[in-house]
């Protein structure tokens, strides 16, 4: 047992922290208000190698471990959850999915541009009537011999407009149910793809979310990931890992709100003393700190399991559910500690509270995580 970080992991955490404070913080409120994508910052993050940080260096990645990855995501999310979600989807779903499940030719074709951050990745699974219930896919990929024809609509797609590479899940053979689903890699600008309007969201406003419509989109057969019918299994495997990234993001949002609340509680006076000296506030801070520590440990353990090639599906579901729910509680209390100031945008905690909410929803709601957890513990 060793809870110590390596020199390198700490260096990456600090690099992410320095970047977030220097480059993301100055315009985070303005980007939240105007729903503006952090294009300049994303370019810089690409140059620093955060876009393919876990990808093998032979595909132009950074070759870092998942511990480093979650530490970096947490630091970004403390300041800017939108930037963190773009990186989480890109790394956990697009890069990881292609690196671990695509064939060599596909890796050569798609992975280096993603790892260098020249193209952002998006994962298209959710539909108007199918989220975690992925077998209810209505988007079809009709087998036309040497190509597939994709038709249908995907919803709530993170980075839909800013992405260059899509991973799309679609139904090829409805009769085979989940074994009739396929996954494809395709260019976002393929003919027949159109986007719905930018969703006007509660939080994560600086990352773009759209519905994506497919009308007779031709995808060559060599763009299918794995054997025919591998798509469902592929999506489930990816989401197991994706949850670690979202859990890290959630605990980052919570940590950002906690840091602000802690600082404020030592400055603001009421009834003749700093409010942290009132037990009502001190106990809130203590409870928040315990949740943060628990959440971080769950995230780190999931990442450690993944780094060591061990099963991590159960722990990542626990991490996602616990961190997301804790993030909601911690950010809500951070607003409460700030009182009236907390309700004002300038103090950041109301934004963090809005950002926290979606972590209980996307990449599997907290309820879905409990299904995964309960089914796993009841299996034996």
């Amino acid at each position, binding site marked *: 047992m060793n809870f110590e970080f390596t020199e390198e992991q700490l260096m990456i955490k600090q690099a992410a922290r320095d970047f977030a404070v220097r480059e993301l913080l100055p315009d985070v409120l303005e980007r939240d208000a105007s729903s503006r994508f952090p294009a300049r910052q994303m370019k810089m993050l690409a140059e620093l*190698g955060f876009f393919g940080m876990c990808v093998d260096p032979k595909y132009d990645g950074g070759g*870092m471990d998942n511990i480093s990855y979650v530490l970096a995501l947490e630091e970004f999310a403390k300041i800017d959850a939108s930037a963190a979600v773009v990186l989480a989807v890109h790394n956990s779903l697009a890069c990881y999915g292609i690196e671990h499940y695509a064939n060599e030719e596909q890796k050569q074709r798609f992975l280096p541009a993603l790892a260098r951050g020249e193209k952002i990745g998006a994962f298209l699974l959710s539909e108007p009537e199918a989220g975690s219930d992925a077998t209810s896919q209505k988007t079809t990929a009709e087998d036309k011999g040497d190509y597939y024809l994709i038709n249908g609509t995907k919803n709530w797609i993170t980075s839909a407009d800013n992405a260059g590479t899509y991973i799309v899940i679609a139904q090829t053979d409805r009769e085979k149910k989940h074994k009739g689903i396929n996954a494809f890699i395709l260019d976002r600008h393929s003919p027949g793809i159109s986007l719905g309007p930018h969703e006007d969201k509660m939080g994560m406003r600086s990352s773009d979310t759209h519905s994506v419509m497919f009308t007779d989109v031709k995808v060559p057969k060599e763009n299918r990931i794995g054997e025919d019918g591998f798509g469902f299994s592929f999506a489930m495997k990816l989401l197991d890992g994706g949850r670690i990234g979202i859990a890290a993001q959630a605990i980052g949002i919570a940590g950002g709100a906690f840091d602000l609340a802690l600082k404020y509680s030592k400055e603001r006076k009421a009834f003749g003393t700093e409010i942290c000296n009132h037990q009502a506030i001190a106990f809130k801070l203590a409870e928040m700190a315990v949740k943060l520590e628990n959440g971080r440990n769950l995230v780190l353990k999931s990442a450690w399991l993944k780094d060591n090639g061990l099963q991590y599906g159960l722990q990542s579901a626990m991490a996602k559910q616990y961190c997301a729910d804790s993030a909601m509680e911690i950010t809500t209390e951070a607003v409460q500690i700030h009182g009236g100031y907390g309700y004002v945008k300038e103090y950041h905690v109301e934004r963090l509270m809005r950002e926290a909410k979606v972590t209980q929803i996307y990449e599997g709601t907290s309820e879905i995580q409990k299904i995964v957890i309960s089914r796993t513990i009841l299996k034996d």
Partner: protein
Amino acid sequence: MKILVCIGNVPDTTTKIRFDAEMKNLDTNGVQWVINPWDELALTRALEIKEQSAGKIEKVSVINIGKVDAEQTIRKALAIGADDAFRVDADPTDPYFIAAQIAEVAKAQNYEIIFSGIESSDFNGAAVGSMVAELLDLPSVSAVSSFEFNDGNIVLKREIDGGKETVSVQAPFVAIVQKGISINPRIPAMRGIMMARTKPINVSAPVAVDSLVEAKTFDVPAPKAACKMVDAEDTDKLIELLHGEAKVL
């Protein structure tokens, strides 16, 4: 041409500074160590110059006088982009001892440009750079806030009272740099962090030099006194406090 950047290993600038009971040694428990901020800016500029020099600057190295625990800081300098590093295995005591070690390495390795931060953010000695120049009998330019290297012509700007002075200098020389030499320290990239794993840190034993100065004790500033609030209308009370307690009237 080769550049040597002197880097100090100092407590993070947000560290709460504590000393042992005798007030003689820094309590290093829980201290996070970083590259001295001025040195980090100097390194950033040195790397920019190298990248723009079309091969004329062949190498940027860093040097630190410290024990093995300083290697984390050295490794960060390598991750930022320094090509290699020297660590003279000794506790950095007084400025003269440190300067003598740097001078020894710089001379043996033929460095033509030596960068030193204007001071260290911990002990604020502001002496090492000038001493290195003196020991090597090199010109030294102090308070450098701009460094341009065009086709081998070196133009420096110095901060002077109320303005700037532009100077030119021929290598070899020592530049003692301050804020402005670069805007922000460079953030290490993943590739740099990965490459730092295999970059060499050359460790050598110190040359025998006596320390000239020994720190006896340290004093920390008295804690801030509590703020007294006075009613805006109550000027008598304000005058009484300023006169009787603060003793400024």
